[in-house]
């Protein structure tokens, strides 16, 4: 006979605490309802109900993990975790004995109350608007609502839970002329119902208009403006691993030995933030019960902090920064909440006006496939525009950009004065780099 999730968790903790020095039970229960529009029309409605439990033990001084979605036998889960602990990492840290919650708001009743009909209506309106402007556009819209409950309790007495909501919206269009394909997309995730769907369509349509004509850029070092989205998929993703305490501890971070030292342009100030209200990456406490916080990673070019979970902090002889993140089937690991960059003072127009010949990069493909550890990136400019005498003159194709993020952020020409949400985890401005490697197909 199946137990309820809570009964199962209680039983697991009770059994585990008798046989391990420390034990911790983590569970997630989720109801997710995605609505998919494909090829201009409603295609699929889905409902996902999932729940699962993870048990982490420290037994014989070693870490073990087991997880399950099968709530039949608490003894099996405990046995699996103890078996894993025979071979696990030596761990001398203590789990928290209380959980003090941080303040960010993570639950929006309006998201919980949002009906499938309303989601369908939002998607349909976006598609109707886009098609009214250009009937040749093939539109795709994905709306996704998630309500989840996270629960954590451990053998040292800490217990906490929270219910979070999240709403994601993505909108993309495809336009084919001859053998030329144009794809433009936008997506955002928020814990609140605050994503401006109408503005998202207008942004996509604006980018389609800018791509009306094609243009070429030479193979050369050129001034490049990265849009918030372009900066996210080139600079920030490769930068992020360098601030992960685990990578630092291993000596594999290029900035690992730069704490307190200047490693970037003084224009760069970068935060990781677990406290932003309704941000997708915010939570009252992290996945092992440590309150979340705001951490300045880079302050005016100086490396000011790395991020840690409890185990990594123990190994590094420091404190957790409340950045533990885990899936049910893995141990917690340091992970960023929301990364945001302190805005600068330039407008996009200022940046463009400064460029005789250059490139505006918005969507980049394949830049993740490289030596991320060293901050090296190289990717196809999937959506980007040639800048000529301060004007955007056409879309470039078959063009690569490449560079090293640590060098690129050492020499920044300007940072935009407005932040834009990128996906769920970033808030970034436009970034203007005086020179980046550009390669394009020979004429």
């Amino acid at each position, binding site marked *: 006979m*199946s137990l309820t999730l809570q009964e199962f968790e209680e039983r697991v903790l009770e059994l585990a605490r008798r046989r391990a020095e420390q034990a911790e039970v983590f569970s997630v229960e989720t109801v997710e309802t995605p609505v998919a529009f494909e*090829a201009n029309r*409603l295609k*699929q*409605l889905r*409902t*996902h*109900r*999932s*729940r699962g439990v993870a048990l982490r033990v420290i037994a014989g001084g070693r*870490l073990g*993990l*087991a*997880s*399950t*979605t099968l*709530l039949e036998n608490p003894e099996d889960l405990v046995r699996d975790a103890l*078996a*894993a*602990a025979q*071979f696990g*990492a030596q761990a001398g840290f203590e789990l928290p004995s209380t959980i003090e919650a941080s303040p960010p708001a993570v639950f929006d009743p309006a998201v919980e109350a949002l009906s*499938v009909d309303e989601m*369908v209506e939002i998607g349909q309106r976006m598609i109707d608007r886009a098609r009214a402007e250009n009937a040749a556009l093939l539109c795709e819209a994905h709306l996704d609502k998630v309500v989840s409950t996270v629960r954590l309790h451990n053998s040292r007495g800490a217990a906490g839970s929270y219910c979070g909501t999240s709403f994601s919206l993505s909108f993309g269009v495809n336009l*084919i002329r001859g*053998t030329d*394909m144009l*794809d433009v997309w936008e997506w955002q995730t928020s814990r609140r119902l605050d994503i401006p769907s109408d503005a998202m369509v207008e942004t996509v349509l604006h980018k389609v208009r800018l791509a009306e004509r094609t243009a070429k850029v030479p193979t050369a*070092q050129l001034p490049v403006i990265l849009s918030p989205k372009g900066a996210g998929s080139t600079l920030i993703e490769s930068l992020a691993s360098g601030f992960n305490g*685990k990578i630092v501890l*291993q*000596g*594999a971070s*290029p900035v690992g*030995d730069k704490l307190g030292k200047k490693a970037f342009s003084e224009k760069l100030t970068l935060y990781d933030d677990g406290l932003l209200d309704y941000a997708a990456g915010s939570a009252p406490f992290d996945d092992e019960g440590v309150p979340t916080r705001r951490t300045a990673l880079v302050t005016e070019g100086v490396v000011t902090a790395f991020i840690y979970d409890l185990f990594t902090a123990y190994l590094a002889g420091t404190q957790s920064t409340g950045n533990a993140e885990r899936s*049910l*089937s*893995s141990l917690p690991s340091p992970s960023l909440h929301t990364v945001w960059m302190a805005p600068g003072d330039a407008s996009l127009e200022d940046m463009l006006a400064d460029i005789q010949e250059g490139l505006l990069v918005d969507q980049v*493909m*394949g*830049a*993740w*496939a*490289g*030596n991320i*550890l060293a901050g*090296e990136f*190289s*990717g*196809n400019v*999937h959506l980007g525009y040639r800048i000529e005498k301060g004007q955007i003159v056409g879309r470039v194709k*078959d*063009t*690569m*950009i*490449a*560079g090293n993020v640590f060098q690129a952020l050492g020499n920044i020409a300007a940072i935009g004065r407005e932040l834009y949400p990128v996906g769920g985890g970033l808030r970034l401005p436009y970034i203007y780099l005086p020179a980046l*490697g550009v*390669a394009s*197909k020979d004429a």
Partner: protein
Amino acid sequence: MRDQLADALKAGAGADYVEIRLQRSESTHLSYRGREIEQVGRTTGLGGAVRALVKGGWGFVSFNDLADLRASVELAVHQARLVGREETRFAPAEPVVDIVRPALGKDPRQISLADKKRLLDEYNEVIWRTSDKIQTSIIRYHDLSRLSYFANSEGSYIEQEMVDMSLVVVAVARDGSDVQQAFLSRGSAGDFSALENLHSEVEDAARRAVRLLSAKPVKGGTYTVIIDPRLAGVFIHEAFGHLSEADHVYENERLRELMQLGRRFGPPELNVFDGAAVPGLRGSYRYDDEGVPAHKTYLIREGVLVGRLHSRETAGKMGEAPTGNARAINYQFPPLVRMTNTAIENGTVPFEDMLADIQLGIYAKDAYGGETTMEMFTFSAAQAFMIRNGQIAEEVRGVNLTGNVFETLANIEAIGNDFRWNHSGGGCGKGGQSPLPVDEGSPHIRVRNVVVGGE
């Protein structure tokens, strides 16, 4: 189980089509960071999903609690009704009743955690003793066994078991602030021995990481490129495989025109296929997640588009036959049209002949990965050398290549005679479902006019 599923399917009466998948799984993972073990864990799972089709609209419900089964069928049908506005065109498939147990080599479930750890300890030791420039190591091992029960409203009932393993060994070398990495990636469907005795390959990866410290970043530009079988497999997966997945094409009129069967994409020497019916690979199976038997499908024959990969829906809408390519990474997702084992068939040109007349080019080997947006794609080399005057010259790094499907395949100048499958431990991602076990294969190929990113 069969009766239980058949009974639940009755709640879907009135829908055009309903299917149920239940899956029971267990997996083990071990990982290392540096000299010490990082994680050891075991996961067991039970879950299921119902998918329903009404008037061309889909409903899908996944769950962990089997008590929800009947209610999930009703909800999936209800959702499909809300969506369905047209007629259902779903290609017919013969109902199948079958029980499939895979042919296993060394079953990872029969190997103790202690023995698995001992093997990984050996590999880790190999990395660390290779050079004092080794800064750290990362090792990830994962095995998964899964028993799936599939039943649909047409009378199919299939029990199918799969066992999949992957191993990734990364060596990280450091010199001052320069950090370089190289890796070995291996996977296997059902045979742990494929992951054993890789000590010399692990050592090679460690040496490559150290060597990369003295390699210069590649200079960006347009080059003639020789691509080794491993990277060429990823190339064909990205360059053409994804565009062959009919769900990208079937509802896009313009793309359908561009992807007319009979269109020439490459030289007459080029033959490309995909198929789960090719046995013993990570993308192999007997039935796909719609219960359609696996095929081997030629995508390109003698340079000409001759086929594509289908689910029952895309086949029905395009008036073609299903190919057994509907796959879901697990019960939490509906099946999508996916590749299985994708390859460029063997050609005739020896490697030396490819090299001989290249004045300035790049020899790109081993894959970090790749990505596509259908027209343009990237594929990234984990190792690369300049070619100068017909000779392999100095090593370069950071080689990410881009191509355009309407030009790059036509720019293939030579296809080698040294075909092999990758057997890599990675996987494919699509629609949020990643990593799906696939394999790729190819001989060496030579392509002109490839844009390479660089400073």
